[in-house]
């Protein structure tokens, strides 16, 4: 279970998040809903360690990970945009995290895991494709598969369906819900769209600037 306790974050002297607390139970999908500028993305980036916390703590399954290096937290994240490695193929993007989380994984196991995820996202034949040759929706799917590949304890998704057209967005929402359910992944999703949150999440948390929480 993820436990965020009194998280405060200041960037460039500006307070972005103040005393934010949240609990996410194992196996559930929680949506963090709020308007632009309410600090949603900063909260995700702080949980995974990309942005340092001014005060407060983050723990997972009772282990304090507040000061743990980013690469040891075993948290997956799908960024809003621009996080795929454009110099690597789809296959190598998905396989990237496997070498670090499971260094002794034999090449056959890596291949099997990548194929499994390509199948899961419905892109079995896309392994050799270049990232820049993919559509926006395909890139979102690859980002999701890459984040899921190392089997993270917790998956963070930052506005994963923004910049997609309406039809594609709803199809992808269905797919992601099925994938999260099939993999039993604990997930925290950030969105500004209440409908999107209702369609995906088992729990919803609303935030408004400054971050005061209200549980629905």
């Amino acid at each position: 279970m993820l436990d965020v306790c009194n998280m405060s974050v200041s960037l460039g002297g500006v307070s972005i998040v103040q005393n934010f607390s949240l609990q996410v139970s194992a196996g559930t999908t929680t949506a963090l809903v709020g308007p632009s500028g309410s600090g949603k993305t900063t909260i995700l980036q702080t949980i995974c360690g990309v942005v340092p916390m001014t005060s407060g703590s983050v723990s997972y399954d009772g282990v304090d990970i507040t000061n743990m290096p980013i690469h040891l937290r075993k948290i997956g994240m799908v960024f809003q945009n621009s996080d795929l490695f454009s110099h690597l193929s789809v296959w190598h993007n998905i396989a990237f995290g496997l070498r670090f989380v499971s260094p002794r994984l034999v090449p056959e196991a890596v291949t099997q895991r990548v194929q499994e995820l390509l199948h899961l996202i419905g892109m079995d034949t896309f392994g050799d494709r270049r990232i820049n040759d993919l559509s926006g929706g395909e890139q979102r799917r690859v980002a999701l598969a890459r984040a899921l590949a190392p089997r993270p304890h917790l998956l963070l998704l930052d506005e994963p369906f923004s910049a997609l057209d309406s039809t594609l967005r709803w199809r992808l929402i269905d797919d992601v819900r099925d994938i999260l359910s099939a993999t039993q992944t604990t997930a925290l999703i950030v969105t500004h769209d209440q409908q999107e949150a209702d369609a995906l999440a088992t729990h919803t948390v609303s935030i408004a600037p400054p971050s005061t929480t209200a549980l629905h």
Partner: protein
Amino acid sequence: MVGRMDKHHAAMMTTLASLRRGAILCCALPLVWLSLFYVLPLGTIFFRALDVSALIDTIGNSGIRHVLWFTLWQATLSTALTVIIAFPITWACSQWDFTGKHLVVGLVTVPFVLPTVIIAGAIRTLLPESLSSGVVGILCAHVIFNVAVVLRIVSARWQQVHPNTASASRILGASSWKTFWLITWPMIRSAVASAVGIVFIFCFTSFGVIKVLGGPRYSTIELEIFIRAVQLGDTSTAVALVVLQLIVIGVVLGLTMPRNTASLKIITYRTSWIGDYPRQQTLVRASVFATILLIGAPFLTMFINSFRVRSNWSINPWRHLFDGTLRPMGVDVAPAMSNSVIFAAITIVITVPLALCLASISAYSSSHAGRRLITALASAPLATSAVALGLGMIITFDQSPINWRAHWLLLVCAHCTIALPLALRSLTAPLQSIPPALRDSARTLGASALQTWWHVDIAIIRRPLLVAAGLSAAVSLGEFGATSFLTRTGNDTIPTTIARLLSRPGDVVQSSGYALASLFVVLVIGVMSNA
């Protein structure tokens, strides 16, 4: 409604078409300039070097082979050291925002626009005689001069890598080093290769540094060309050396120029404020401190030495600059200063319009290949030795009706040709980044193509125009290689005067050289900061 849309579309198409027509028209001027003052002089050198026997004799000469070997290994070592030393400050400036960042970048850039003789002189005041006059001094001077090249080229690329890319790698389990090696490095290595190529060429064609610090033992091809052509009158060997040098430069450029840079978007991402990241703060501070120490220390010791005569404090070196004491030695500071300022002003007047013409072609032309060809041609002087250009000009413009070799205007022409690539680089990107919609809006509001160009394009690139003017002035003020060839009595510039003072024996004269160099550093900083 449809009619209005058609009119709007037609206006948009004519804006671009009119600008393209204008760009093609103004293409002629810089092309004529480059043909006359770059292609023709170097073509003449090649034409003369068709004498293969002179080329073979030159390569067969053991003394020349020794010079070639030294030139190659010192350039290789200087390049390696420069990249290693410049990397921490490049990382700090491209990834983080901190107080005084612009000042640090400006400080690192100052040596690049200074005459190399000044950097060499400053190194001489910092290091003991046994170290400064030799390989150590040469390497130090090359590193100080070229740190800015690595910083500017690599950080421009590094800032285009989205911060989320590295974060994604870290979240997926890669350590900082693995992230750098597997993710960041593949994205910036083409920029590093470009920087390596340019730094190598600058070190390979080093002239002023070797002239001051090389002593009798160390000579590069560039210096050898000067000695052969000016002091020994052996033009055929000098020309053969220029050809050899151009071949090496061509090979290096071919190996290091980027082939495919399409994988990154031309967007510069905002850097993070270092105060929010305590773990990285120490590294950034150390990088900045070490770089300021490296760049600042030689100039500080040079300034201090300008007040020292035989271990005593004195203001005589400064007084002698203007009281006529140095005149019997052929050194007259006031005319040299006025020459430098006049040449710099003329260089601005000629170079900036030429660069604007070329940048406009680059921004408006629809032909990708033509655009690349023109940009490559205009950038070529950056990779060509100034001494070779000076020699080419002397042997080209030495007969009627173009017997200009003794005229000061030829000196200014050389300055303009050398400054053109830098002025062009400062204008091209800003012009290219203007959204076409702005021009279309101006046209639909009733502005003509010329009015659109003036009120939109020129208004937006006003600051880059100032930067282009500042760089042109700085290149002209600091140019030493070609100037050494083309200067005549009465045409002395500050760099040639400093070189003359530093090459004379006597403590007071040397200190006067340091005083004039210090004055010049202040002048260049003033020009650059105003730009």
